[in-house]
């Protein structure tokens, strides 16, 4: 091993990330070399100083801890107003109440609106669940897999390309939302929040080429139906940009 190779390994050694074989080689080099040990020593003492100084810095976590606990306890004591994630029980309650609403819709047509409100709330919740951090590890993202899914769920010949809007290739989940399966595409971009596209096939004959916009929490939802496919775009963008994206996708349905 020469000095250049050794220098390439010193950092991994310092961070305990070097395998046994390379560690042995590196140690052998360090014993024989006049210059490399100095680099290792200086990086080591620099790291030690940094860690000690950081940990010696006083941090008063009392106030924020108290505030978080107060907020959590307040939420825990008011499950009905809990604005967060649907737990399994709450999903069950949501589904059950949805079924009840379904009966009401059937009995009283005008109640139809609240049925939709529920569905939109569930879609926004799923968007927030899947997109608030990069939980895309078990998502499917190979091109052929994506194209197969968009064909199956949206009769699209290929995956919607949102690069003109600054987004990368999407990741895909199949999500059950209020007992209905949707293809959930998540698009990320360098700056700003991710965007979701939900789609599924419906047997509804009504076609809405118009893109409808509504706001929920801090999100904009653009929805459209066409050619037996249902589409929702959920974003944190402005209304206009969201609807442009929805239009661009619908144009290819």
């Amino acid at each position, binding site marked *: 091993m020469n000095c250049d190779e050794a220098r390439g390994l010193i*950092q*991994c050694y310092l*961070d*305990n*990330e070097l395998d046994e074989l390379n560690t042995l080689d590196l140690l052998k080099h360090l014993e024989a070399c006049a210059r490399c040990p100095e680099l290792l020593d*200086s*990086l080591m003492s*620099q*790291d030690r*100083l*940094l*860690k*000690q*100084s*950081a*940990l*010696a*810095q*006083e*941090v008063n*976590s009392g*106030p*924020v*801890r108290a*505030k*978080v*606990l107060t*907020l*959590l*306890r*307040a*939420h*825990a*004591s008011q499950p009905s107003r809990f604005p*967060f*994630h649907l*737990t*399994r029980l709450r999903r069950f309650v949501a589904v059950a109440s949805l079924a009840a609403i379904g009966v009401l819709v059937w009995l009283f047509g005008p109640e139809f609106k609240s049925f939709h409100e529920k569905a939109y709330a569930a879609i926004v919740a799923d968007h927030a*669940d899947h997109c*608030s*951090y*990069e*939980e895309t590890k078990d998502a499917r993202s190979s091109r052929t897999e994506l194209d197969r899914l968009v064909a199956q769920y949206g009769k699209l010949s290929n995956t919607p390309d949102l690069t003109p809007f600054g987004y990368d290739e999407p990741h895909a989940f199949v999500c059950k939302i209020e007992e209905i399966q949707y293809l959930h595409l998540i698009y990320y971009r360098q*700056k*700003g*929040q991710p965007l979701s596209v939900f789609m599924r096939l419906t047997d509804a004959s009504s076609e809405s080429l118009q893109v409808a916009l509504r706001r929920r929490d801090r999100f904009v939802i653009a929805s459209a139906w066409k050619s037996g496919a249902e589409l929702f775009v959920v974003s944190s963008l402005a209304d206009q940009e969201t609807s442009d994206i929805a239009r661009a996708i619908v144009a290819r349905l």
Partner: protein
Amino acid sequence: MTNPERDPRLEIFEREAMAHLENLLRTAVHLVGSVGRAEDVVQETFLRAWKHFDSYESGTNCRGWLFRIMFNVVHAERARTVKLSEVPFDESDLGDGHLLGANVPFTPRGIEGRDILEAVDKLTDEHRAVLWLVAVDGFSYRESADILGVPIGTVMSRLHRARLEIRRLLQTERTG
């Protein structure tokens, strides 16, 4: 109605997640540069963590999970700040949080300890984050890559550059 203090989920959350609060706050101060903003970030992190607590598997890497949420909160906050910075800057927006280097109580470890923390605060956001995660918080390359949502090679190269930059800054400090 059940006693909220006895919500078993909340008890687990307090035991497994809240135990890392001080760690997160310490890191957040250096990520966002002021105590006030760091407290906001940590608060938001724990609210989000609670919201997603069902998806967390008890006994797995809770600290890594919390850090991942925190970095997403910081990214989201930065995205907002970028937009806000087009608006004329108002000093009073800083609230009672103070900028680093001004009032943050520094370590009793003397001039060297202060210098190195100041040097860290001069790094770019990306370099500082990686260095802090690995060298201070003791995360592995793999964990840091997951927390930051970048490839492991990126972690290694940023870390390398961050350490060299710190060395350079400290040397300039000593000679200048």
